[in-house]
């Protein structure tokens, strides 16, 4: 193995993305990655290219393999991924895959639409992303977001936290992470146009044989944390209401989402 000058290390990004480094070099390069600002984005892009190569090799797996894997899954315990472990470097896999490297901070929207079935690792991520992009905000805004982040983390941390999502034909979606035991939920909207300044989107809890109950108003781009949900709740609905909200919905829902899959409606 030869010695590397620093400038040489950088040129290993492509071989690294192709898994074409020897173990020694791989370790050196990963060490370099941690110190190099521009590398993670570059390595990620190259790794995505490599994944295109992977896709193109797809072939049907042998039928017998399915039963073997599923049988193994039924009897194999999962790793517990407590918050710290999820962030620690796991053996062998590249940092950009496991997320040791910081993500590029280009997205303003918080990616809450994926179902977090367990929450410990997810909570850390959500809180981190809430705090990640706050430059130029006032102290009040920051405090409000911190409070909200804590509430979100609380929902996510519930052992029975489950997630679901509904999408309409135009790609707009509503995402929910809810805990029936806590009676709380984090609700996010995505893909909706801005409303005129005198209109607001309001979230409603729909229950059988009862009036819809307001769960609050959506702000810009931020999730809404709803609490005090009873388990008889069957769905959530969003309507457009005059600024300040309404006691009862005055328009047709723009989106509605059943809560059965997240443990409600029992």
């Amino acid at each position, binding site marked *: 193995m030869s010695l590397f000058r620093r400038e040489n290390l950088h040129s290993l990004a492509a071989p690294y993305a*192709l898994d074409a480094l020897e173990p020694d070099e791989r370790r050196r390069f990963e060490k370099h990655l941690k110190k190099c600002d521009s590398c993670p984005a570059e390595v990620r892009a190259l790794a995505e290219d490599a994944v295109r190569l992977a896709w193109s090799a797809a072939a049907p797996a042998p039928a017998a393999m399915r039963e073997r894997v599923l049988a193994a899954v039924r009897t194999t315990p999962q790793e517990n991924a407590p918050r710290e472990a999820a962030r620690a470097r796991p053996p062998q896999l590249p940092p950009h895959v496991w997320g040791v490297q910081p993500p590029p901070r280009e997205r303003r929207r918080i990616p809450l639409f994926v179902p977090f*079935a*367990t929450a410990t690792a997810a909570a850390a991520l959500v809180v981190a992303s809430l705090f990640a992009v706050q430059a130029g905000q006032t102290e009040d805004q920051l405090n409000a977001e911190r409070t909200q982040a804590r509430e979100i983390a609380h929902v996510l941390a519930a052992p029975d936290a489950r997630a679901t999502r509904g999408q309409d034909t135009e790609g707009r979606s509503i995402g929910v992470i809810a805990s029936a035991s806590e009676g709380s939920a984090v609700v996010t909207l995505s893909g909706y146009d801005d409303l005129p300044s005198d209109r607001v989107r309001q979230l409603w809890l729909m229950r059988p044989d009862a009036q819809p109950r307001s769960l609050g108003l959506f702000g810009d781009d931020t999730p809404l944390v709803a609490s005090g949900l009873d388990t008889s709740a069957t769905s959530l609905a969003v309507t457009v209401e005059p600024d300040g909200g309404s006691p009862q919905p005055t328009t047709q829902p723009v989106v509605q989402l059943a809560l059965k899959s997240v443990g409600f409606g029992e």
Partner: protein
Amino acid sequence: MEADELLMLVAGGDQRAFEELYALVSGPVFGLVRRVVRDPAQSEEVSQEVLLELWRSAGRFDPGRGSALSWILTLAHRRAVDRVRSARAAGEREQREARRSHNPAFDQVTEEVEAGLEREWVRRCLDRLTALQRQSVTLAYYEGYTYREVAERLSLPLGTVKTRMRDGLTRLRECLGGVA
């Protein structure tokens, strides 16, 4: 449901989500592993390990850092390359090379499998690379050779191989466009 969502459910111990995830990714995982490892029995073994590892360590997936498919296929590729290198080190490679010469060429076998649109695109785009770019990329990615080994096989300086790999991947990206 998409792989990202499924993987998150799997992280929570949802076995039905795992079955769905299996349906979605077993083909790409197996196909990739077989492309690298070649030996069918070993490919199946490595694929099983990868899929079981998905179950065990789904909680490590971090959606903020890339797609689930990318995570899964990177894992599969790493495991396949590990296998092929240790096999090579153990000298089994020659034996398998010999066996393979009595079997239909690999590409003929895969041709029988349904050729997806993505495969066609990638193949076309690979064709547009220069021969050295293509060989550098495919020897490393599909054959599991290190860039040093690639340099040796192609009788090229190390620096040239590194550059060809980077240029090859970049041109591939341009050719495939923003579909990813």
